[in-house]
């Protein structure tokens, strides 16, 4: 048998990424095992989260040591994560699509690189900077002019900060695709007497639909997992389901970051295991959302087009 060093190296390198992913998932499953047994399905359906009394003697439930009074329910955080990511997408998609079309169709090609670089620049701004802007500008604004109870911290602030962070992701992916649409498409549409709006809507956008959905999925992944910026402006909702745009929320990622330090002082270690279980849930949610988006972009839409 012939040894192919190049092929072997590339194979090894390419296996590293899925291996790392599997290692993380395996670690989460093994580490949170006791918590999964202790929590059961209540974990996903309960509103109340309580680390329990870490300064009291631990109690034994079903053979598992837990802090007394511990109760782990994460429905609030699932709701906060999905709601903030969904609203962020609703805000970001029109903005991003508009920006991308403007940059691809309207702007003279000479100044396009400068402007598109600006859009991409927003994508690399660290999230804590968005969080600071949120606290300094957005939260007081919402509190003064929009919120009925005077508090700007909450779902809306978190969603807007997230929307700003993900808009450039969608815009720059879409822009790249728009620029690759063949000139002939536009020209033939114009030749048929289409207006500029019709050209974009009927001749250009259908060509980039898959890329656009891909960009949205990428952005959604970022929105679901964003931690720091959300932690700073979300109002840290706990034990209460969000009821309006101005309710304080917690997302799964920001909640893990906020609770980890206290969880580490738990002598039974159950608190950290429960946090690992939340991380597992976040992983499953991200996976499910991505799978749905993939399905939408490939199968369902094409069926509708044919019909």
């Amino acid at each position: 048998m012939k040894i192919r060093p190049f092929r072997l190296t590339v194979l090894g390198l390419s296996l590293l990424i899925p291996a790392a992913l599997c290692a993380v998932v395996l670690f989460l499953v093994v580490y949170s095992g006791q918590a999964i047994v202790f929590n059961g399905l209540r974990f996903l359906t309960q509103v109340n989260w309580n680390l329990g009394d870490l300064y009291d003697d631990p109690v034994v439930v079903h053979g598992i040591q837990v802090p007394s009074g511990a109760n782990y329910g994460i429905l609030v955080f699932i709701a906060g994560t999905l709601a903030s990511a969904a609203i962020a997408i609703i805000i970001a998609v029109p903005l991003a699509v508009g920006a991308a079309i403007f940059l691809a169709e309207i702007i003279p090609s000479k100044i396009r690189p400068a402007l598109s670089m600006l859009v991409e620049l927003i994508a690399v701004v660290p999230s804590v900077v968005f969080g600071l802007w949120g606290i300094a500008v957005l939260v007081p604004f919402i509190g003064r002019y929009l919120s009925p109870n005077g508090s700007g911290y909450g779902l809306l602030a978190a969603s807007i900060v997230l929307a700003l962070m993900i808009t450039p992701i969608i815009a720059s992916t879409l822009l790249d695709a728009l620029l690759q649409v063949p000139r002939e498409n536009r020209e033939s549409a114009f030749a048929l007497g289409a207006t500029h709006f019709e050209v974009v809507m009927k001749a250009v956008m259908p060509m980039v639909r898959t890329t656009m959905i891909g960009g949205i999925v990428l952005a959604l992944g970022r929105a679901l997992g964003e931690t720091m910026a959300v932690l700073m402006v979300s109002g840290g909702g706990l034990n209460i389901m969000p009821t309006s745009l101005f309710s304080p929320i917690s997302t799964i990622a920001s909640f893990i970051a906020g609770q980890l330090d206290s969880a580490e002082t738990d002598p039974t270690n159950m608190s950290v295991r429960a946090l690992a279980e939340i991380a597992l849930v976040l992983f499953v949610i991200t996976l499910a959302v991505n799978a749905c988006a993939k399905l939408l972009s490939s199968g369902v839409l094409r069926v509708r087009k044919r019909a």
Partner: protein
Amino acid sequence: MKMMNLLQAGAIALAVTATAGVVQAQADSATAPLVETGSSLLYPLFNLWVPAYTASHPGADITTTSTGSGAGIAQSLKGLVNIGASDAYLSDTMAHMHKNMLSIPLAISSQAINFNLPGVTSLKLSGPILAGIYSGKITHWNDPAIAAANPGVALPNHVIIPVHRTDGSGDTFIFTQYLSASDAAWGSTVKFGTSVSWPAVTGGIGANGNQGMVTAAQANPYSIAYIGVSFSAQAAQAGLGQAELLNKAGNYVSPTPETISAAAASVANSTPADERISMIFAPGAQAYPIVNYEYAIINTHQSSKDVATAVRTFLNWAVTEGNSMSFLKQVHFMPLPAAVVELSKAQIKKIK
């Protein structure tokens, strides 16, 4: 010839290793490098201490990081750091499980209850009132309970916005301990901890870090917040009022050096040998109710004798020279009473 070369190379290699070993050993005895991590409240004090200590102890090498009290305890327990800084002492369970872990007070801190109440500059509050606010039983500023404690103050008919910490915090620990000690209902339901399961209060918000608390209280009129005393300057600058709190003796007191020292003095003689005691709601006519020891969480078994010596030397310096007001006043801390310094020194001796 070849053999000769090999031998020579071997001899040189041996010599190099031996020299390196000697250098290493000398370095250890003079300056075993120490790592400190934990409480973000103690971090500014450590950053004042370390340069001064290094200046008077040439070769000393201490790295400080700010992670959080929980991380300070956990990493010290695992032996990842030499000194874990924590706003809270080890729980009974932790202390029993890990008999080699010490909780050594380094200084005294306290906490203010700040409010953003347009038109009101002074306010008297008690543990039961605060427990009522944070559990959603007292929802308006003109509630009879608040009015009874503040005769003559024009309290607005407006919803109260209680602000709490979302991150694990020693400030949450001492605040909830005050509520637990002074309000039976809070003490039997929510209890205390560096993170607690805050009761659902409509309009209540969570903020990240002490700076986040100041910002949130400033941005939300009619809010109330508990803020570590190191941030009192920022809180005052943000226009927040500072409440007088009801102490165990039934007097309303503000956090001043006198009232904080009064609380420290009243607990000094009852502090046990392992120094794990709450100073919250201390007896004494002038004692401020939310005062606490800031702890170093130390493993008695350090990795080597030299490291243990370095830890002992530093901690002994911290509870004596390090407790001078020139350091402490910059972070609004207070020095340990003399009796407690002796207890801390006795504990430091156990580090080996």
